[in-house]
Every structure is written in C-alpha cells, then in structure tokens.
C-alpha cells in the first residue's frame, strides 16, 4: 500500500517536473481547424478528455505537450470523418478508460454512478416512512392515544430504570 503510494507520488513528481517549465498555451492558434463546425466538435470533445500526465485537467485546458498531441489527434480523426463516439472509442482503445473524464458505467463504476442517487433514494424512503408515521400519529391523536406496544412498554421501563439510579 505505502509502496504503491510512494510510487504514485514519484510518478506525479516526475510528471510535474516535466510539465512545469513548458509553460506553453492550452489550445494554440495553429491547431485550430478551418472548418468551424468540426472545430466546435473538437473543442467539446476535448473537454471530455483528460490530459493523462496532468492533475485533473482536460486536454482543452492543459499546456502539456501530450495534451497538444491529443488535441491534434482528435482533430485528425474528426477530419477523417469519425463520429464523436468513434473518436472517443479510438482514444479509449489506445489509452484506456483513464482518458475519459466521465467514466463509463460498468460494474466497477456502479458505486460511483449510483452512489448519489442511492443516497437520495434512501433519504426519500426514510422521509416517506416518517411522513407515514406522522399520519398514523395524527390519526391516533384524534382517536386518543393508543396503548403502548410491548416493545414500547419495555423501552419505557428501561428508561425509567435508568433514571432510577
């Protein structure tokens, strides 16, 4: 575990050292396609793709040479007539899923994609349960208090017992 971390950190340090002095520019003028429609597609694709040697940067934002290579590659594929999906598939085949800033839904990303929805769902279930209980209580308040259930009775004596000492 710790050797993995240090290896990873080592990589990061090397990468940063490589990337830092090359303070070029994100998208450079010579990369831009003359076909405006293709260029727009290229830009929006670039925002979905990660510069793999950077920290959480898209290839659209990054100054790194690798990002430039990828930007040019995306534009080459688009000019060759690829659809957006084909470009992405091509890059994933070449560089792995790491290149996607929005991971594909699969078994190993299920928790990632479903986690927030699960929190919402569990919360909503809990709330509807609370609302149901409220309605029950409101009804029993009209018809006078219901007798304690055995479990409630036990809990009550437990609390009273606690207060006793």
């Amino acid at each position, binding site marked *: 575990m710790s050797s993995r971390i240090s290896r990873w950190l080592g990589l990061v340090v090397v990468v940063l050292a490589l990337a830092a002095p090359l303070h070029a*520019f994100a*998208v450079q003028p010579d990369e831009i396609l003359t076909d405006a429609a293709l260029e727009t597609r290229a830009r929006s694709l670039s925002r979905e793709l990660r510069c793999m040697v950077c920290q959480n940067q*898209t290839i659209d*934002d990054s100054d790194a040479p690798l990002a430039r290579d990828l930007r040019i590659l995306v534009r080459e594929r688009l000019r060759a007539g690829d659809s957006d999906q084909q470009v992405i598939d091509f890059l994933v085949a070449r560089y792995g899923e*790491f290149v996607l800033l929005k*991971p594909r839904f699969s078994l190993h990303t299920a928790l990632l994609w479903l986690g927030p929805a699960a*929190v919402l769902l569990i*919360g909503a279930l809990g709330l509807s349960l609370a609302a149901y209980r409220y309605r029950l209580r*409101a009804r029993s308040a009209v018809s006078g208090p219901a007798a304690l259930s055995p479990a409630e009775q036990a809990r009550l004596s437990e609390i009273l017992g606690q207060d006793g000492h």
Partner: protein
Amino acid sequence: MIAELGHYALVLALGLALVQACVPIIGARRNDPVLMAVAVPTAIAQLCFVAFAFAALIACYVRSDFSVLNVFENSHSAKPLIYKITGVWGNHEGSMLLWVLILSVYGALVALFGNNLPARLRANVLGVQALIAVAFDLFILMTSNPFLRIAQPPLEGRDLNPILQDPGLAIHPPLLYLGYVGLSISFSFAMAALIDGRIDAAWARWVRPWTLLAWMFLTLGIAMGSYWAYYTLGWGGWWFWDPVENASFMPWLAATALLHSALVMEKRDALKVWTILLAILAFSLSLIGTFLVRSGVLTSVHAFATDPMRGVFILAILVLFIGGGLALFALRAPLLKQGGLFAPVSREGALVLNNLFLVSACAAVFVGTLYPLALEAITGEKISVGAPFFNATFVPLFVPLLIAVPFGPLLAWKRGDLLGVAQRLVGAAGVAAIAIAVIFAMEGGGPILVPFAIGLALYVMAGAVTEIVERTGLMKVPFSTAVRRARGMPRSAWGAAIAHFGLGISLLGIIGETQWSVERIAELKPGQSISIRRYDLHFDGTTTRQGPNYRELAAHFTVRRHGELVGVMEPAKHSFPSRGTSTTETALLTRGFAQLYLSLGDPNPDGSVAVRLYYKPLVLLIWLGAVVMVIGGGLSLSDRRLRVGAPKPARARAALAPAE
C-alpha cells in the same frame, strides 16, 4: 532564538490542550464547578501560546532567517514583505500552524463569550475542542515542525512558488481555514450534547451563530479561491471540480444543510438527531478536506505536501475524530428524544427536503472525489472523474433544490399550504417565464436548456423578493405600514431572503458565463488587432520590466468599442529566476458585470505572441452572488436573538429539567 521560543510555546500549548481536554470533561461528569472552570483560562492561555508561536514564525520569515528550514524552503530575501508574511501559510507546516491558531481562536471565543452557556455544556465543548487541538499540535510537532533548524544555514532561500505570490492567495487560505475550523465548534457542541445525553432548542440557538460564522468564511474563502483560479490560471475557468476545490465545497454543502436543520431545531425542537449527525459530518468533511490537501494524496495546483508519513498521521486523526464522533453518536443518539411534530408539507418539511438534496449533492461530490482514489488503492485500476461527471450528477441534484428554495420561507411552520404558496409564487414564476420567452426569442437556436436555466435563476431571485413583499404586505397595505413592518422584520428573515437572492445572482452568473462566453485564440504581431463581440483590441507592442523578484514581459493592448477608447489591457508573463518558473498575469477589463479576459502565451522569435481572449458576460455575478450570500449571513448573525443567546423561556425550561 525566536524559532526555539516559538517551538517551545507550541509545546506549552500542547500541554495546556492536554489539561483542557481532560479536566473540564471530568469536572462535567462529577458536576464539579472548579474542575469545569479550568477550561476557560486554559483556552485563553492556549490561544496566547499558539499566537506567540505563529508570531515567532512570522518573525523568522520577515527577518529572512534561512537557518530555519521552513523559511529557507519557502522564502527569499528579495520577496516583497507582504509575500514574506503570507508565505508563512503558503506551505504545509505554516498552514497547519495557522489551522491550530484559528482553532485556538475559536476555543478562546467560546471561553470568553460563552458566559450564558450552561457550565457543563461549556466545559464539554471546550474539552472536545482541546482534544482536536491536541491531535493537531502533536501532528505539527511530530511530522510538520516549522521551527526546524538547518545546521549550515544557506545564504538565500528557495522562494515561494510564484503562483502563490498573489494578493488573492494571501487571504484565501486564512478565510478557508476560518470556515473549516469554525465547523469544529459545531462538532464540539454536538459531542458535548452527546456526552451529556441532553439537548434542547437552546442548544441549536448556541450552535447556529458559530455554524453561520463558519459558513460565511467558507463561502468567502471558496469564492476568493475561485476568483484567484480564474485570473491566475489563465484559461478563463473559475471552477474545475478539482479535488482540492471539492475538498472545500463538501464542508460548505454540509454546513449549508446544518444551518437549515439547526433552524428547525431552534424553532420547533425537531430534527435533533439529524442536526447532531450533520454537525459531525460537516466537521468530518473539513478534516477530510484537510487530509486531501495536506497528505499529498492528490497533487494538484494547490497541494504541495508530499510526505506519506504525514498522510498516515492525518488518517489516524480522521479515524479518531470521525470514527469516535460517529461511535458516540450511535451510542448516545437514541437517548435524544424527538421533539415537535410537523406535517410533510410545512416549513420544517421544506427544510428537510433542502437537507435531503444538499446531502445527496454532497454525496455526489464526495463519491466523485474519493472514488478514483479508492478504486486505485483497492484494484489498481485508474479512472478519471472530472467536470463532465459532476455536471451529470451534481446538477440534476441541485436543480430540484433551487426550485424548492422560494417555497421554504413562504410555507408556515408545522402545517403549510402548498397551493397557497404556489399562488403567491405566481409572480416569481411569471418573471421566469417572461425571461425564458425573451431569451428564447433573442437566441433563436442554441441549447434549449439555457433559457430555462436563466429562468430558474431569476425565479430564485424573484422568490426571495416575494418573501419580503409577502412579509411586509407591500402592495396590500399602505406603504408606510409596509415600511414599518419591514423595519420590524427580524434580521434573520432579511438575512435568509438576501442569502437566497445571492444564490440566484451566483446562478445567473454561472449560467451566463458558461453559455455565452466567447473565445478568440490568435497569434498577433505588434500593430495587429483582434476583435470580440463589439470590442477591438489593438496590439501596441511588448515591454520588459524588472519587478522586485521577477522579470516582466508585458503586452500592451488598446481596447476600443465602436471606435471609442474604453481602456488598455496589459497581460504579462512574470519569470522568477529563483525558481526558474513563470506565471501568466491575466489582464481583465470590467464592463458592467461582464469582463474582457486576456492572457498571454509565449512570445515567438518573430515578435508575434499567442493570445487567448474571452468576452465573459455576467461573470462577475458569480462572485458578487457569494458576497451577497455572506451579507445575508452577516445580517442573520446580527439578529438580536442570536446575539443575546438563549432566551429566557428556554433557560427557564432548562432549569426545570430534572437534575440527574
């Protein structure tokens, strides 16, 4: 000598914190007023010693004492004085000392202004607060000591990372830490309530101002950091869903939820258990934020600590406080009995809905930030989670919340009338509908969602205005009566409306900037022009200058609109010989709420230079909205009720509670 004194003061502060962490809590258990009273002087003395240690470190920086390792690594004799001072918290060790300083400031504030707290509550709060201080003092002394000396002192320091030599970064970390650490007070109050096994509405009244204060600092800190990234990084973005940003955003979301649930608890004595849990979660997220940034588990623009040993120590702190907090919660929360009942459709119900969506949105950020790390640690598989993921998960969770925002304050407590509120919001919805129609007509094509998003922002703003109009009876009663009612309205009601209005303003800025921003990228030679929207920028040429500790290459642009001179822009590149790095200095020209944004690439040998030019409409609203939110928070904080602390009836009730 100063460094050693600072080091020694920190050790003494640790000793005091140890005393404060044990004696008052024991005193509270035994009901011994003498032992409980120990907490107050120790908290104040602790602040004095930590402040001394911090001042000592500042003195080392100001005097450029390079025999101190930390100063050598992060300072330079030629650095301007202001950055010598701010460099203290521009690095890991110094920023941790700042963390502890702020922690002790909050502790001392509770000690000084907590006279109206029940003695046992105060003793327990200060005890828990000191426990946090012990952990962080130990962390600094054992793994991150800023006072270490070098045997052979070098003549010159290595300088602070140039990207941090910026006024924005001088105040961003202290603001953020004031927010992070402020949540420790809510946590300590929650722990104290659990230790005591007792909690009432008055508790919420004491906790809310502290949470509000922390939330205000957090809001300002995040906005500040976002603006800094916007003008420093040079590619026009202002939020990157970077893990370091998420680290501050998660506590903000949790603190926002906590503010709202504490309101329910204060007014209606309900949601006690949930509020306690949120207080624990909010501070846990602050700790996780500190861990993410400080352990080097992510290395990004902001994070500079890369020492696994520290990571393990912070991990231990996390396990101790989050695990301990949740364990105590599991043990004691069942003892806290639920209070007031409310119908699902009511102000309480709306606030619960607010909490549900805020917590789910927070979960989206949490999972997106930590899942890649966890997956890599467990399976070795590497995935990336970036802006496209967060846009796809966070946004759908936040939109229902925004639709619900204007409903909340208009609903009655206990049992509300949804239809009646909807009728009162017809005006706000009308404003939104008109805006949607106008934008749709103006834009013609374009993404269909844009008019609706703008409509949503305007609806949130109009909803906040509706609340004020409804409460004052404006339009229905004579104007003078409305003014009198407006004066009589509690400041917290004004604060809530203004904060919600600010939320709408930020939203408007965010949508306007993301959807209508225009970009030009070009290579220009002196004498050439570039135009964007109705502006023409003429490139006059470049000059080089010598700054205090850098060389500057500045490009001059004259900006004209329809041939009329509106200003000059001078984007620049600063190169710092001490570190061999350079920074991009963006030029900004503000026109109303819009900005022209110009940044410079490297100059070519033939004298031409690559430029990146943006026209960003409404962009300033993003941060202006945050400022308005903070003003709302401040108004609420100045409410008499919170200033006075617990009101008489609650105190009387507390006194009547059976003695254990």
